[in-house]
């Protein structure tokens, strides 16, 4: 029922920004290819040329980078933190060590057991902390890290503080990963595969949901993201990476004792993730490398310098971490990237045409990737399932609220609020500041729970339902203070709105088996961008847009969910006159498509010229409702707005 050309604009501008770079991007990708080939050659031949000491170091870096990768995913991408990753490493090491030494089982069986155990324990730990405020998980992991360390050290069965020895090496097809040079390949292939899977995951529907966590749970849940589940996915993945790292460690070192799994080392892993640059999978490798080498060097240098033995490196690390978070909270990866860019630019400065690189989204820190087939030559309509727009059973009402009440302590924010929104109607909610309009929005969309009253959507009771459930039914919203993910592109922000229209899970996303669906989601997002007039800025970071465009972007995001009703909280605030005209046209077009629009607005001229009906609130109660012309004459409304006592 939704027509897809409601604004009748031709989709010429749907060219990915990188296409504009022309010759410049070609030579860039050429130089990138060279870099990749050189790195690959270095990687393959490293065990032959590296001295034993450095080879051991490289192996160590690979193992810790795997742990740091999980933390990058948690800390940098999802906004979670764990100090207990070392304990997961220890769990992996001990589980496989016990199974292979005490029960004579194959390390490969050990690997399965390790994955199972880390998943089970991380799930239990996550289940009790992930729904709480963000600081409970790290505090929980401190307690868990310490406890596991004490258990390792005190269990006779696990060899106490001396640990377990004569652990067999990993073997497959008669090849034994016994020597440092053979396990080198195992470690680094595991690491690269993990990085690839992580990167794939981040550039998928599930990945967008994970990245949305940083913008707070309210927005993500309002888009239909199950934030508890997304957090759990991240935590489980990080735990499994740590467990696998521990598994390799145990079979490489051939013995385990508790000391590499202490809380102290757990803090070091976090340091690696923060140092490397917490939003990039490569940051994990960079952080792991820098911290490992620095630690080695400091442990060598500092005691000589200070003339005594001690944990001097932890003092330096601690100071470094504080300064880093104060001055460069994104770690050193952005600096490394800038340096790389400068080198590339310097090497190409001879050719002037290469300088016109157009809009460089990567420079702004955006990680966008587009599935093939999103060029301007094919602008098909997305084949995502659409909602059946049949007339609702509730006497034509989309949304109906009755006697809604909300109190904050002694303050009554909403009292006995009743209103109805019909299909293909624009209903405006107006009232002075503090009248309770935004609270009402939060109650209607399930962000806050109401104290009394009933709300129905298409005849279904939705009071007491979660924001996610309500979004799924087709009631979508924007926010009064723009709530976008500023570092994600416009397209990705809109695609987040279409979250509920996809079904593919994290495993398929990590393996990129969901590309077909991903392409449809991106097409839908592009289509909605065009519908609201954002087709020119698809690949820019959302944070770089002007406020008016950001508000429009929020509408596009809500539209991507294929809603039956839209709740827009002050969509015209901060917009210029021309932009307001465009917005009004857009809302009329949506109405023509059958969508019910409820909007909060302060601009009276805008509201009166647009709305079919107006509801006026003051001090938490509805004081009038009806057609705009009638409302403008209503004495109570005039009194509320102008403070004139008419008697």
């Amino acid at each position, binding site marked *: 029922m939704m027509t897809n050309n409601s604004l009748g604009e031709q989709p010429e501008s749907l060219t990915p920004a990188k296409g504009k770079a022309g010759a410049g991007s070609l030579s860039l990708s050429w130089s990138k290819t060279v870099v990749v080939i050189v790195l690959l050659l270095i990687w393959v031949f490293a065990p032959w040329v590296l001295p034993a000491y450095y080879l051991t170091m490289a192996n160590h870096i690979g193992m810790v980078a795997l742990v740091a990768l999980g933390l990058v995913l948690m*800390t940098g991408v999802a*906004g*979670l*933190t764990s*100090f207990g990753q070392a304990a997961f490493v220890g769990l992996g090491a001990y589980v496989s060590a016990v199974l292979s030494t005490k029960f004579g089982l194959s390390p490969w069986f050990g690997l399965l057991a390790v994955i199972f155990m880390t998943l089970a324990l991380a799930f239990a730990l996550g*289940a*009790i*902390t992930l*729904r*709480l*405020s*963000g*600081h*409970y998980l*790290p*505090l*929980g992991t*401190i*307690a*868990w890290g*310490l*406890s596991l360390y*004490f*258990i390792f050290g*005190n269990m006779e069965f696990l060899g106490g503080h001396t640990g377990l020895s004569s652990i067999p090496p990993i073997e497959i097809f008669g090849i034994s990963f016994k020597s440092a040079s053979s396990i080198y390949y195992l470690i680094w292939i595991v690491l690269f595969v993990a990085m690839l899977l992580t990167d794939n995951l981040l550039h998928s529907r599930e990945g967008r949901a994970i990245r949305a966590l940083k913008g*707070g*749970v*309210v927005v993500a*849940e309002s888009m239909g993201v199950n934030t508890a589940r997304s957090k759990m996915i991240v935590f489980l993945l990080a735990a499994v990476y740590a467990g696998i790292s521990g598994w390799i460690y145990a079979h490489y070192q051939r013995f385990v004792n508790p000391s590499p799994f202490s809380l*102290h080392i757990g*803090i070091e892993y*976090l*340091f690696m993730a*923060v140092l490397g640059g917490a939003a990039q999978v490569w940051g994990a490798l960079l952080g792991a490398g820098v911290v490992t080498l620095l630690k080695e060097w400091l442990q060598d240098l500092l005691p000589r310098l*200070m003339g*005594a033995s*001690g*944990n*001097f490196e*932890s*003092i330096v*690390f*601690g*100071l470094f*971490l*504080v300064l880093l*978070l*104060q001055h460069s*909270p994104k770690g050193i990866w952005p600096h490394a990237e800038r340096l790389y860019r400068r080198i590339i630019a310097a090497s190409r400065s001879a050719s002037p045409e290469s300088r016109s690189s157009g809009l460089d989204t990567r420079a702004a820190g955006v990680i966008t990737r587009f599935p093939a087939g999103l060029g301007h030559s094919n602008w098909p309509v997305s084949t995502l399932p659409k909602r059946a727009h049949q007339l609702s059973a509730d006497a034509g009402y989309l949304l109906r609220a009755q006697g809604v009440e909300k109190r904050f302590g002694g303050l009554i924010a909403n009292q006995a609020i009743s209103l109805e929104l019909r299909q293909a109607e624009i209903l405006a909610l107006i009232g002075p500041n503090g009248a309770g309009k935004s609270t009402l929005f939060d109650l209607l969309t399930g*962000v*806050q*729970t109401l104290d009394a009253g009933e709300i129905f959507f298409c005849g279904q009771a939705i009071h007491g339902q979660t*924001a996610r459930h309500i979004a799924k039914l087709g009631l979508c919203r924007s926010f009064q203070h723009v709530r976008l993910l500023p570092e994600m592109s416009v397209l990705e922000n809109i695609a987040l709105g279409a979250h509920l229209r996809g079904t593919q899970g994290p495993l398929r996303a990590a393996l990129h088996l969901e590309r077909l669906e991903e392409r449809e989601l991106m097409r839908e997002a592009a289509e909605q961008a065009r519908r609201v007039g954002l087709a020119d800025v698809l690949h820019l970071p959302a944070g770089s847009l002007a406020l008016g465009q950001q508000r429009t972007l929020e509408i596009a995001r809500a539209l991507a969910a294929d809603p039956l009703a839209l709740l827009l909280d002050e969509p015209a605030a901060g917009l210029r006159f021309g932009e307001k005209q465009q917005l009004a046209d857009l809302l009329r077009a949506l109405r023509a498509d059958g969508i019910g629009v409820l909007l909060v607005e302060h601009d009276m001229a805008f509201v009166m010229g647009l709305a079919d009906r107006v509801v006026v609130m003051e001090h938490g109660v509805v004081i009038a409702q009806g057609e705009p012309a009638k409302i403008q004459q209503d004495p109570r409304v005039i009194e509320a707005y102008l403070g004139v006592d008419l008697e």
Partner: protein
Amino acid sequence: MNLDIVLLLAQDGLTNGAIYALLALALVMVFAVTRVIFVPQGEFVAFGALTLASLQANKFPGTLWLLLAAGLICFFLDWRYQRRLGEGLVRRIRWPFLWQLLFPIALVLAFWFMQASSFKLSSLPLFAQLLLTLMVVVPLGPMIYRLAFQPMAQAPVLVLLIVSVAVHLVLVGIGLVFFGAEGSRTPPFSEGTFGFAGVPVNAQTLWVLGTSLLLMIGLGLFFEKSLFGKALRATAINQTGARLMGIAPVFAGRLVFLLAALIGTYSGMLIGPITTIYYDTGFLIGLKGFVGAIVAGLASYPLAVGGALLVGLLEAYASFWASSFKEVIVFSLIIPVLLWRSLRHQGLHDDE
């Protein structure tokens, strides 16, 4: 296990619990006002006990060097900030930051003078030793706030937590440098035991219970009655609102860190005669205070005290039944607490 042992363990548990309770109070207080989860609180416990021990051994306390260094850096940073504000040379020198330079220098000179005149610090009365220790260690609190947290006071709780852990790492490392790996035990505030319900009660236990109760009452009065206390409460409830009323967040932060350092240092001196304190013992003690604070959801003062006492008792009985697993048992206490909180958790709330 007979009744005597039950009572004896209860006495142990309550003694340690009272100290955990003090720490839990400080943690809740710091979190409420600054949103910092103050992990280095435990280091103040260790610094307090070990500084007192070095005084009693007639040694120059290493923490004094730390105070001097931190004070110099703080002074420099504040001075530079004033200069950036364009203040003239005279107006740039102000008490709120000048003390950071003068106080440590005066203390170092005083100590140096005492050592030069071969005056035995150990011959001072205990009260003077305690006071001296407080003077050396407590000013580190506001200085740490100035250096680590003030520049990023608006950062998310999670980032502040990471900074907090980093500061803990630094202080533990410094503790090892200054005090070495050997532990110290200080003599009790007063010798002797009393009989109570047929169980011998150490005088130190009475000191712990009595003075921590006094300290708690003092804190209560401070927050209820004094202007500074009210300012802190206002900041805890609404920082922006408090700021509009003229309460500088920086001032509130430094004041609350001063209080936390005071509580931590005093707790360290209280517990010094009960257990041997090593440079890294403070962390574990602080974490037990944390468990108490988590029971209270980092929000309620009475609940935090209750939780901490529970931790102390649990630890005492656990050390009798399964001494090598007592830490595991104590830290496992947070699992049911978190579970209960998680189940009760409703609605959507964004983290700050």
